C-alpha cells in the first residue's frame, strides 16, 4: 500500500513535469484522478502490460472517455510497464506516440481507442463488454468519464443501453470534481444529482466520497467489482478535487488545461517529494 501511495506522488510529479515541458496539457483533472488510476492499474485490474494485445481477451479493460487527462493515463501506463518511462518525455511533441489526447493511431501500448472528443467512451466500453460476453470472457470493463462530459447526449444514449440491455460487466466511474473549462459544472450547466440520474436509468450506483484517498478508492473499486454480474451496469460517483496534491491548483477550474510556469513547477514539485525516479 505504501508503494502505491508513493506511486501516486510520482505520477503527480510526472503529470506536472509533462505539461510544464510542453507548456500545454491538462493537469487539473489528471491530478484529481491519480488515485483512481494508481488503484486501477496497481490493485484492481488483471492485465498483461508486457505483451499488450488490442483484443485483451482474458484481461480486464479500461477506456478513458475524457481523453484530455492523458498525462495521468500515460504516466500510469508507463509506471506499470506498458512502455518505457522515458517515453513520457515525448508527450505532445512531434513524432510521439503520446499524443495530446490518447490514440491508437501511433500504436501506444495500453490504449485501445482514441478519445478527446467527449462523450464517446461509454459506448465503446459497452461494445467491449458485449464482446466479452460473446467470448465467454468473465473479465470486466472499466471506463472513466468527467462530470462535465455528462453534458454530452451520447452518454445518456449509452447509459440507457447499458441498463436496458443488462451490461453488468461494466464499471463506469464519474470523476465528480464539479469543474469544467468555463467554470463550475453548476455555473456552466447544472446537472442535478448525477447519481440519481444513473439510478433512474437503471444502473447500480455507488459513491466514493473521497476519490483522492487511495484506500477509499481501492475499497470502492473492490465494492464495485462485487456488484458486477448481477444484471445491472455499475456506476461509481467518485468525488475528487481537481488539481489534488498541488495546493495552488485545487479548488478552481482554472488549472483544467493550463500548464505551470517554471516557478509554479518548482512550487508543485516541492509539494510532491520524489518517491521513485523522475523520467
Amino acid at each position, binding site marked *: 500500500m505504501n508503494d502505491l501511495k508513493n506511486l501516486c506522488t510520482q505520477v503527480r510529479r510526472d503529470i506536472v513535469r509533462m505539461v510544464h515541458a510542453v507548456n500545454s496539457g491538462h493537469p487539473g483533472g489528471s491530478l484529481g484522478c491519480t488515485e483512481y488510476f494508481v488503484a486501477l492499474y496497481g490493485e484492481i485490474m488483471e492485465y498483461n502490460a508486457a505483451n499488450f494485445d488490442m483484443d485483451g481477451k482474458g484481461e480486464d479493460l479500461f477506456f478513458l472517455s475524457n481523453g484530455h487527462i492523458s498525462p495521468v493515463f500515460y504516466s500510469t501506463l508507463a509506471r506499470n510497464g506498458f512502455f518505457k518511462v522515458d517515453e513520457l518525455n515525448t508527450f505532445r511533441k512531434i513524432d510521439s506516440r503520446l499524443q495530446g489526447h490518447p490514440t491508437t493511431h501511433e500504436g501506444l501500448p495500453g490504449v485501445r481507442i482514441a478519445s478527446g472528443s467527449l462523450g464517446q467512451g461509454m459506448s465503446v*466500453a459497452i461494445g467491449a463488454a458485449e464482446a466479452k460476453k*460473446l467470448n465467454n470472457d468473465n473479465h470486466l470493463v472499466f471506463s472513466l468519464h468527467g462530470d462535465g462530459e455528462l453534458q454530452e447526449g451520447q452518454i445518456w*444514449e449509452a447509459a440507457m443501453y447499458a441498463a436496458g440491455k443488462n451490461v453488468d460487466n461494466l464499471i463506469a466511474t464519474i470523476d465528480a470534481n464539479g469543474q469544467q473549462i468555463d467554470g463550475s459544472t453548476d455555473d456552466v450547466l447544472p446537472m442535478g444529482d448525477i447519481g440519481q440520474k444513473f439510478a433512474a436509468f437503471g444502473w447500480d450506483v455507488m459513491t466514493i466520497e473521497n476519490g483522492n484517498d487511495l484506500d477509499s478508492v481501492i475499497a470502492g473499486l473492490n465494492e464495485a467489482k462485487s456488484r458486477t454480474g448481477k444484471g445491472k451496469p455499475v456506476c461509481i460517483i467518485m468525488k475528487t478535487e481537481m488539481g489534488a496534491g498541488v495546493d495552488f491548483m485545487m479548488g478552481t477550474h482554472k488549472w483544467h488545461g493550463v500548464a505551470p510556469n517554471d516557478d509554479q513547477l518548482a512550487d508543485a514539485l516541492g509539494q510532491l517529494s520524489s518517491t521513485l525516479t523522475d523520467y
Partner: protein
Amino acid sequence: MKYTDSGSKDTRSGFGAGLHELGKSNPNVVALCADLTGSLKMDAFKNDFPDRFFQTGIAEANMMGIAAGMTIGGKIPFTGTFANFSTGRVYDQIRQSIAYSGKNVKICASHAGLTLGEDGATHQILEDIGLMKMLPGMTVISPCDYNQTKAATIAIADYDGPVYLRFGRPKVANFTDPNEKFEIGKAQLLQEGKDVTIIANGHLVWKALQAADQLEAKGISAEVINIHTIKPLDDAAILKSVRKTGCVVTAEEHQMNGGLGDSVAQLLATSTPTPQEFVAVNDSFGESGTPDQLLEKYGLNEASIIAAAEKVMGRR
C-alpha cells in the same frame, strides 16, 4: 445489349442476404441496428443469429461507439441504419472512435440518395460519400444492384478496416452475375467503347448502360465502367479508358461536390487532364416525389447522361 435485368430487386435486400450468409459462415460477424431492422432487411440475421444481433434503439451515435468497442475482442460489427443517420448524424463518432482508431467496423447504409423518394430531403442524403471518403483509412463502396450489394457485403467481412457500404431503397434492375466475386477497389468494365467513357456507380450504373445503348443508336460508342469502390479508386482502369476515349462522363446519385466525379476529376487533373461532365446533384437538397420523378427532375437519368456524353465529346 450485353446486360439484362433478371428481375428487379432492391439493393438493401442484397445487403440483408449477404449479412445472413455471413451469419452462417463467419461466427465473428455481429450486426447492430438502430430501430430499422425491417427497412435494412436484417430480419433473417436477427432471427437466425439472435445472440449476435444488437438492437440499439434510436441512438445511432451510441451504436457507432458500441460497434467500435466490439471490434476489441475480435468481432466484426455491421451497423445498419439509413445513410443519413449512418454518416452525417454520427460523423464525429465515426471519425474518432472508428476511423482514427482504426476499428474494423462495417457501416452499412440504406435509403441513400434521392431514390428514397417520398420521405423527402431530410432523409435523402446526397453528401454521405463525400463525408466518408474524406476520412483517412475509410473504404467507400456503392454497389450497383442486388447481386453486387450481396457480394460486396460478404467481401467486406474479409477486409480488415473500416468500410462504408452504401445502398438504396427502391427495386432496381438486377443485372450483374450473381456468382461474381466482389473485389474491393477493382473497377468493373461493363461495356467497351471508344468515343466516350461513362463512369457510374450505384443506381446510375444501369442508367449508364441504358444511355450507352441509346448512344450506340446514334453512332456513338460509349465505354461503361462501374466504379463501385470510390475509395480506394481504381486509377489504372480509369486512366486506361480515358486515354482511349479522351473524354469522360461521371454519373452518380450524390452531390457533385464530394462524390465519385470529384474523385475522378482529381485523378485526371493530376495525371491526364481530360474533359469531364458531371451527372450529379448540383448543390441542392432533394424533395418528396417518386424515385423516377426525382431522378428526372434532378437530372440523374439516361437523358442527362446522353446529353453529357454528347457535350463532353464536343469539348475534346
